[in-house]
C-alpha cells in the first residue's frame, strides 16, 4: 500500500513538473549574408530577397515567390544579414530583387530587376538549389551587384531579346 502511494506520489510529481521549456524547431527559413557591390540607383524603391520553388520561366509564375510579403534589405552598408520565412521544400532560385520607384503589377517587367542570386557552389554559373526540409537553410550567401541587374524576362522561355 505504502509503495503504491509512493509510486503515485512520484508519478504526480513528475506530471506536475512536466511542461518546462522544450526544444522547438525554428520555423523554416532561408538566411545568409548578402554583400553589396556598387551603389544602389537613385530610383531605388527597395531591394528584397525572395525564393522560388520552381524557376519562373513565364510571366505568370513571376509572383509565385516566397515570402508573399518580403521585408526590404538595409541599403548603404557593405553587407547585410537576411532571413526569409518560407514553406518547407526545395528552392531552385534564391535571389535579390531590385524594385524601381513607381512599381506596379502592370509594369513589373520594366520596374523589377534580378540583381544577384545564390549560386551553386559546384558551378557558380548556375543558381544554387536550397533545401528547407527538416531545418532552416543557413549560410545562403551571395552578392548583390547593382552594376549587373537583369529584367525578369531574361529568364523566361524564350528569353526577351
Amino acid at each position, binding site marked *: 500500500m505504502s509503495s503504491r502511494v509512493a509510486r503515485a506520489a512520484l508519478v504526480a*510529481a*513528475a506530471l*506536475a*513538473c512536466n*511542461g*518546462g*521549456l*522544450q*526544444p*522547438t*524547431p*525554428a*520555423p523554416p*527559413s532561408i*538566411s545568409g549574408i548578402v554583400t553589396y557591390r556598387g551603389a544602389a540607383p537613385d530610383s531605388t524603391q527597395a531591394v528584397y530577397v525572395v525564393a522560388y520553388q520552381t524557376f519562373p520561366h513565364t510571366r505568370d509564375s513571376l509572383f509565385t515567390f516566397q515570402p508573399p510579403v518580403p*521585408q526590404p*534589405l*538595409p541599403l548603404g552598408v557593405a553587407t*547585410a*544579414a*537576411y*532571413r526569409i520565412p518560407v514553406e518547407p521544400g526545395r528552392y531552385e532560385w534564391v535571389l535579390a530583387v531590385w524594385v524601381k520607384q513607381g512599381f506596379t503589377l502592370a509594369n513589373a517587367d520594366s520596374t523589377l530587376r534580378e540583381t544577384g542570386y545564390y549560386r551553386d557552389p559546384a558551378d557558380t554559373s548556375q543558381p544554387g538549389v536550397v533545401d528547407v526540409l*527538416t*531545418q*532552416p537553410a*543557413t549560410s545562403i550567401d551571395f552578392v548583390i551587384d547593382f552594376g549587373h541587374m537583369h529584367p525578369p524576362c531574361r529568364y523566361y522561355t524564350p528569353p526577351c531579346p
Partner: protein
Amino acid sequence: MPVKLPAATALLLVARTLGAQTAIVYGTVRNVATGVGVANANVFVPGTALKTPSGTDGRYLLRNVPAGQVEIRAVVVGYPPAVRTVLVAAGDSVEVDFDLRGLPAAVDDLQAFTTEPLIVTAAKHSQLLAQAVTSVALVSDTDLARRAVSTVDEAVNRAPGVLFLAGQVNIRGSSGFVEGLGSRVLLLVDGVPANQGDRGGIDWDMVPLAEVAHVEVLKGAGSSLYGSAALGGVVNVITRETPLGFHARIRATGGAYANPPFDVWRFRGGVGALGGLDATASYGQGAVRGSLTLGGRHSDGYREQDRSDQWEMSGKAEWLPQPGTRVTTSGAWTSHQYEVFPTWCVPVPPGTRACDTRGQAFQPFLIDSSGAGSYTRSNKGYLSATLDRTVSSRFSWEARGSWLRTHFTDVNPDDWAVSNRFGGEVRGVSRSPSGRVVTAGVEVARGDVTSDIFGDHTQNQVGMYGEAEGLLGGARVTAGTRIDYLDADSSQATAVLSPRVGAVLTSRIGTWRASAGRGFRAPTLAERFVNTRALGFQVIPNPALHPETAWSFEVGNAAPIASWARLDAALFWTEARQLIEPTFLVDAGGVAKIQIQNVSRARLRGLDASLVVTPFPSLTGTIAYLFLDARDLANDSVLAFRPKQLLTLSVDYRWRMFSVGGDFRYSSRIERIELEPVFGGDPRVAAKVLDLRASWQRGALAARLLVANALNYIYNLVPRTLEPVRTASVVLTWTY
C-alpha cells in the same frame, strides 16, 4: 520538553513583563563542537527562583528577570557549567546564548527540530515576533544549514512570499525586474544598510554565508524606520555571535551541474563542476572576541559562458569594556569575476550577427555571439563600527558608522563604476514602566559614484525618525514617522515623509496585526545619470527624477490551529505612485531613446499565508502560498514580472543523526514582461522546482547533500535568461 511560546501567551508575557520592570532573557544552549542545541540544560539566575530547562532544540526562555545586571547560568550533565553576565533593561528581551564544551550525553540530543525563533529586530529594537505589526519571515540558522546553499540569496529565495528574478529580490512582488537597478528592498547587515551606492541594487555575494546566523525578511513598507529603498520590504542579515574560547570551522563544497535534458541543447562535452572552501576561526576571552572567515568558490556554470570565481573574507571584533557596553566592528570584502551570459541565442534577425541555433527557435544554453567574451569583475566590501550602550534599565542607545564600496568593470561592453556609500546613525530606545517603548534616531548617508556611464555625482540623505509603542486597552499600538531630506549634486533638497501606524491584538482566534505605512525609494545615481546604450537604443539621463512612493496596508492573523500546527495569514494592499521605470521616448529628431522616468502607478494586493506543522518532533513541514494581484494602473494591465501565484512546500524529517527533506516551489507563468515587442514571442512557462536534501551529522563532522532542481526542470523568469538546471552538491563541515 521543548520551549514553545504561542503568540497570545507571548503577548501577555510581554505586557506583564513591561508593567513589572522585568525583562525576558532567551537564547540557545549549544554544543560548540556540533553547533547543535543541548536539551534539558538547567538555565537559572542564581539566588532566585528563576529557572527553566532548555528545549529539545536547546532553546530556553526566562521571564520576569529583574532589570539591571544579571548573572545567568546554564548547567547540564556532561558539560562544565557556563556563566554569562548581562545588563537587561525593563521590558527588554535579551538574547543570551551558552556555548558548552564537551560531548553530548546521548545521540538523542541530536534530534533537534526547529521551533520558530521568537525575537526579531523589525522595529530597530529586539521584540517578540508576535509584537511585530507587519509580517516577518525568518530564515533560521537551521534553515541555512540544512539547505546546504552557498549564498545568502539562495537561502532567502525559499522564504514565504519571496521570489528572486535573476538575482533581484521580490517581497510580495515589490521589485519586479529592472536589470539590477534600484531594488525596492533594503538589505541590512546587522542593521547597517548595504544597498549599492550607485545602482541601489544588492550584492548578495558580499556577506559570506558562513558568517550568517539568521535572516529576517520584513514585508511591506518599512520606510518609517529604515528610509529609502524599504519600499517593498527589508532583508536583515544577522551575523553570528562570537562565542568564548577558540572555535574553528572548515566547510568544503563540491558538486556538478546536470547537462541539458535534450541533446540539441548540449553545449559542452563534459559536466560542469562547482566547488568551494571556506574556513572560520574565532576566539573570545573576557571582554574581547573576534572572528575571521576566508573562502573561495569556483563554478563552471550551467550554460555557455557562465564561469565564475570568487574570493571572500570577513571579520568581526567585539569589545565589551563593561556590562551594558559593546563595541563591534565588522567588515567583509569579496572579489568576484564572472562571465556574463548576455541573452540566449535566437535565429538571427536581419542586421545582427549569427548564432548557433542548430535549427531551433531558441537555444537557452547558448549565447548570442554578439555577447561572446563578456565578463564582469566585481569587487565590493564594507566596514562598520557600532557602539551599543545600555545606560539603565530604561534607556539604551546605539551609534554606528559604515562604509560600503563597490567597483565593477564590465568587458564587452566596456563599462566601469566605483561607488562609495558612507552612513551613520544614532538611535535611542526608551522604555517606561508603563510599557511604552520609544525609539528615535537620526540617520545620514552620502553616496558617490565615478563611472564612464554614470558620471561623477554625489547624493546625500538625512533622515530623522521616531516611533512609539504602548499598550492601549488590550492592544499594543505603534505609531511613528520618519522624514528624509534628499539631494543629488547639492541640488534642491526633496523632503519625504513616511508615517506608519500599527497595532497587535490578542484574541481567542489568534494574534491580530494591522498596519498602514508609507514607503519610498529615492532614485539612485545610476537611474538619474545613466548615459549608455542598451538594446540598440541610447539611454539618456534624467536628473529630475522624483522618489517613488507607496502606501502599504496589511491585516494579518497568527494562530495555533492545533498543538502541532500554526497558521499565519495576511491580506496586503499596496498603492504605488511615481514608480521609476525605463521608458521609450522619441526626441525632436524622431530618434527613439530610453529614459528612466517617473511613470507608473501600480496596485499590488493579495494574500500571503503560511502553515507550519510539526506532527512529530522529528517531522516538520511548511506550506506557504502567495496570491498576488498586481496591476499597472497607468496602462490598465497586469504589472510586468509578477507571477500571480507562488507556492512553497517544505518537509524535513530527522532520525537520529540523519535527516532528509525537500522543497517544492511553484510560481505561475509570468503574464507580462517589459519590452513585449522584442521578447514577447519567447516562450514562458510556470516554474516548478523540486529541491531535495539529506544530511548526516556526528560529533564535529557533518555532511549535507543538496540536489537543487532535482527534476531538471528547464525554465526562465526573465527574458532569454535560463534559471539553474539540476545541481548536485555535497557540503562537508568540520567544527572545532
